[in-house]
């Protein structure tokens, strides 16, 4: 596909369970970003990757959140022991390189923690 894809599109889980969210960036894009969009809020930066490296993890809300990227392509955001406040839309974006301003967003994963 031509755009950023994310899966699943929707995820309902029970409090305390772990979840994995997947992002497939645009082919050739070396930079990848994760954001969180809570209801009525703007987008909150979580983490970015340049290649497989994540130089800045300061946006991750807690140590229950982690992310990895393999092969310079697909990235996975993992939330362990989910809490109700983790309910949000998790958006992934990619750009050609980290200095390029234009970030292309995927459709997001809507996470609901019951």
């Amino acid at each position, binding site marked *: 596909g031509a755009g950023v894809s994310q899966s699943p599109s929707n995820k309902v889980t029970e409090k305390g369970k772990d979840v994995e969210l997947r992002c497939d960036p645009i082919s050739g894009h070396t930079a990848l970003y994760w954001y969180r969009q809570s209801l009525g809020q*703007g*987008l909150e930066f979580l983490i970015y990757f340049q290649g497989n490296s994540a130089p*800045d993890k300061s946006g991750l809300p807690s140590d229950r959140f982690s992310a990895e990227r393999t092969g310079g392509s697909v990235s996975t955001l993992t939330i362990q022991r989910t809490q109700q406040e983790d309910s949000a839309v998790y958006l992934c*974006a990619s750009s050609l390189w980290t*200095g390029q*301003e234009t970030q*292309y967003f*995927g459709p*997001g994963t809507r996470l609901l923690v019951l």
Partner: protein
Amino acid sequence: QQQVKQSPQSLIVQKGGISIINCAYENTAFDYFPWYQQFPGKGPALLIAIRPDVSEKKEGRFTISFNKSAKQFSLHIMDSQPGDSATYFCAASMRDTGFQKLVFGTGTRLLVSP
């Protein structure tokens, strides 16, 4: 200092009217100011962007006005159409630790009535 304040939260405009959304920032290190448009169920998409060395940028019906001294910028949508009904986010970024970290406003939900 990293915040971008956006107003109004919601806006209703008649078809053919002008929609105006305002944003303000504090950090003078910001050097890139994009606007993103988001339709329900979709990720945000870049609409138009401006750098602080110009005071206005126009693309079709969309114009950004930028006031560096006041640290404010706004989006004007001329001849607003029902298809423009969406949520609009302003953002700002700077080259921080080698990447463009986007700081988003909280969004404006625009409804253009037929």
